[in-house]
């Protein structure tokens, strides 16, 4: 009897001591966060940047002892899935992360054509998904009602803003009177940017002299470019991915089409310069941030990334890092690792200043309000040219 009492007392004391020092509760389970990245497929450079930045964001938090959630410090565990550059695999990766890995939230996919199907799964499974780089408006909108989705957010601006910025840049900065557009009609992103650009450029008073399309995986653009050449535009707008733009510009040059080429944020991969070389010198594109004129908050990230991976972080890396920043802040504000609580905290997140600038979310939209920059390709490097505010 006495021995039993002793045992109980000892146990109580032991438990009590645990209660008194919450940080010593090593058993606080890690928070799982999922990442869906395009690690193989047609844009593997995007997936690699996303994964690199995700690993960096997680490491920083874990090295600092973990994320403070409701008074306890909890480590972060990363579950990375490759979507192989396929829409169906993006959806199944989201499903796997949500149901089997039981993640708190998902970061990615990046390209709109993969983010849209994954976003549908996240929305119906009531799990927060933040896409770093998907700029198509449809990603965060409900397809049937046209209202914002509840669980899908993004860390970047949207196509309509980008289309507007580039249209104004072509008309005002480049003083272009006529523009030709060539884009992939089978890809959501390219089509979205091209349509907004055309509408806004015409509204400003410019003239679209040719609007040509192709489909994903085409390598020969000679017919479209010959048509564009005969329309003699001042500027050609190519809102296409970094793996296609070099071919398009090279073929245009071979056909003797000499004018200014401009693009959108899908150009912003270091691989663009490796594939395109001198052909791209002097051209412009709109994007999310400029590594050479970043705010002080960003310089630490850039230096760290350079040290770890030996390369300047591109916009995908910067946006992925910011997506994690947004998510960590929302989890902290929510005070518990609960999907619904994190969603509510994220929806009303007050100003967050990240690598890609200041962002705010308003209650009636899942898209942050933030500014864009125009970069120029100069001496084989992306160089800051100007910026555009919303």
């Amino acid at each position, binding site marked *: 009897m006495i021995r039993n009492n002793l045992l109980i007392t000892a146990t109580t004391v032991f438990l009590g001591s645990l209660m008194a020092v919450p940080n010593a509760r090593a058993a606080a389970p890690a928070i799982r966060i999922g990442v869906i990245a395009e690690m193989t497929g047609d844009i593997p450079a995007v997936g690699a940047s996303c994964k690199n930045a995700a690993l960096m964001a997680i490491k920083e938090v874990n090295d600092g002892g973990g994320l403070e959630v409701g008074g306890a410090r909890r480590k972060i565990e990363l579950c990375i899935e490759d979507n192989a550059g396929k829409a169906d695999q993006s959806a199944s990766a989201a499903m796997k992360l949500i149901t089997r890995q039981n993640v708190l939230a998902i970061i990615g996919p990046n390209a709109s054509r993969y983010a849209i199907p994954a976003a549908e799964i996240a929305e119906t499974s009531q799990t927060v998904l933040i896409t770093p780089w998907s700029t198509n408006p449809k990603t965060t909108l409900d397809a049937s009602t046209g209202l914002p989705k509840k669980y899908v957010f993004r860390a970047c601006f949207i196509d309509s803003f980008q289309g507007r910025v580039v249209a104004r840049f072509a008309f005002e900065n480049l003083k272009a009177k006529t523009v030709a557009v060539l884009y992939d009609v089978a890809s959501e992103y390219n089509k979205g940017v091209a349509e907004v650009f055309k509408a806004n450029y015409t509204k400003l008073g410019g003239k679209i002299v040719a609007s040509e399309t192709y*489909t994903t*995986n085409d*390598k020969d653009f000679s017919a479209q470019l*010959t048509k564009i050449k005969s329309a003699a535009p001042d500027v050609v707008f190519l809102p296409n991915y970094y793996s296609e733009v070099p071919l398009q510009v090279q073929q245009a040059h*071979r056909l003797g089409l000499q004018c200014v080429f401009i693009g959108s944020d899908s150009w912003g991969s270091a*691989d663009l310069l490796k594939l395109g070389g001198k052909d791209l010198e002097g051209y412009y594109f709109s994007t999310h941030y400029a590594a050479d004129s970043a705010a002080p908050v960003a310089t630490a990230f850039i230096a760290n990334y350079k040290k770890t991976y030996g390369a300047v972080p591109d916009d995908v890396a910067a946006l992925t890092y910011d997506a994690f920043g947004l998510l960590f802040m929302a989890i902290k504000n929510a005070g518990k690792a609960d999907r619904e609580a994190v969603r509510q905290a994220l929806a009303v997140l007050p100003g967050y200043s990240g690598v890609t600038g200041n962002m705010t979310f308003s209650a009636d939209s899942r898209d942050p309000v933030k500014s864009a920059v125009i970069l120029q390709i100069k001496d084989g490097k992306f160089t800051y040219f100007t910026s555009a505010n919303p």
Partner: protein
Amino acid sequence: MDAKYILQQALNALQLGSIYALIALGYTLVYGVLTMINFAHGDVFMVGAFLCFSAAVLLELPFVPALLFSMAGTALLGAAIERIAYKPLRRAPRVSAIITALGVGIFLESAMLALNPYPKSIPTLIDNVTWTFGGVTVSSLQLLIIALSLGLMLLLDFVVYRTKTGMAMRAISWDRALVPLMGVPVDRVVTLTFALGGALAGAAGTMYGLAYPVIDPYMGIMVGWKAFIAAVVGGIGNIRGAMIGAFILGGVEILVVAFLPSTYRDFVAFSLLLILLMFRPHGILGKTRAQKV
């Protein structure tokens, strides 16, 4: 629509047609001998482009050695695929062979993805000179591609119709059961056919890589399908038919874009090809074969 615009588009069509022709020749050669559709051909073509890239960047070879390196590599690959994957199935139903070919194609894509998922840029191996005649631009590369595809077609024609090996190939396609009794080494001739097909894919991959210098592991799929369609349109199994089919497909694709909104391209191009096949189900130069029961 002036004459120089039409001439420029015609040149574009010739280039695209030549590219399709280089790949279509390989499809038609294997089909002609074995009546087997080698769906892995498009991916052997992709490997050819990557071999050219390795030759140019890692070994720093100039154009002709790089072309030969790539052709030798894909010839070996073609022969190896035949020995490992197709030979055990030679007596199996034809569907099994087609499925195996598709499987080999996916294997090659995935292997290349595992080795290197990044698109690569092939350096300019030959100085590309462009000439402009009254607004029409012609490049030396364009002429080289057209000449090479015509040259290879003539060479293949010569091999198949003027050499002893070619005679053996034609004999095998005529009657596979009887030919071994005449002392024709069937296994060796079939392997040689695949090696020849592989070498053609290597040449096509190299030329394609020079014309469209961004290469990736998936590049063989779409262009492989289109070349296959070209071979069918021309009459699969017929070497000259493959060339004609390829130029028709390239021409139709370019002309649709030239005169209609470019969004209609695939829709109009493939509708035309379907209509053509309705009237000539065996292709333009294809012959109806009596089916033995």
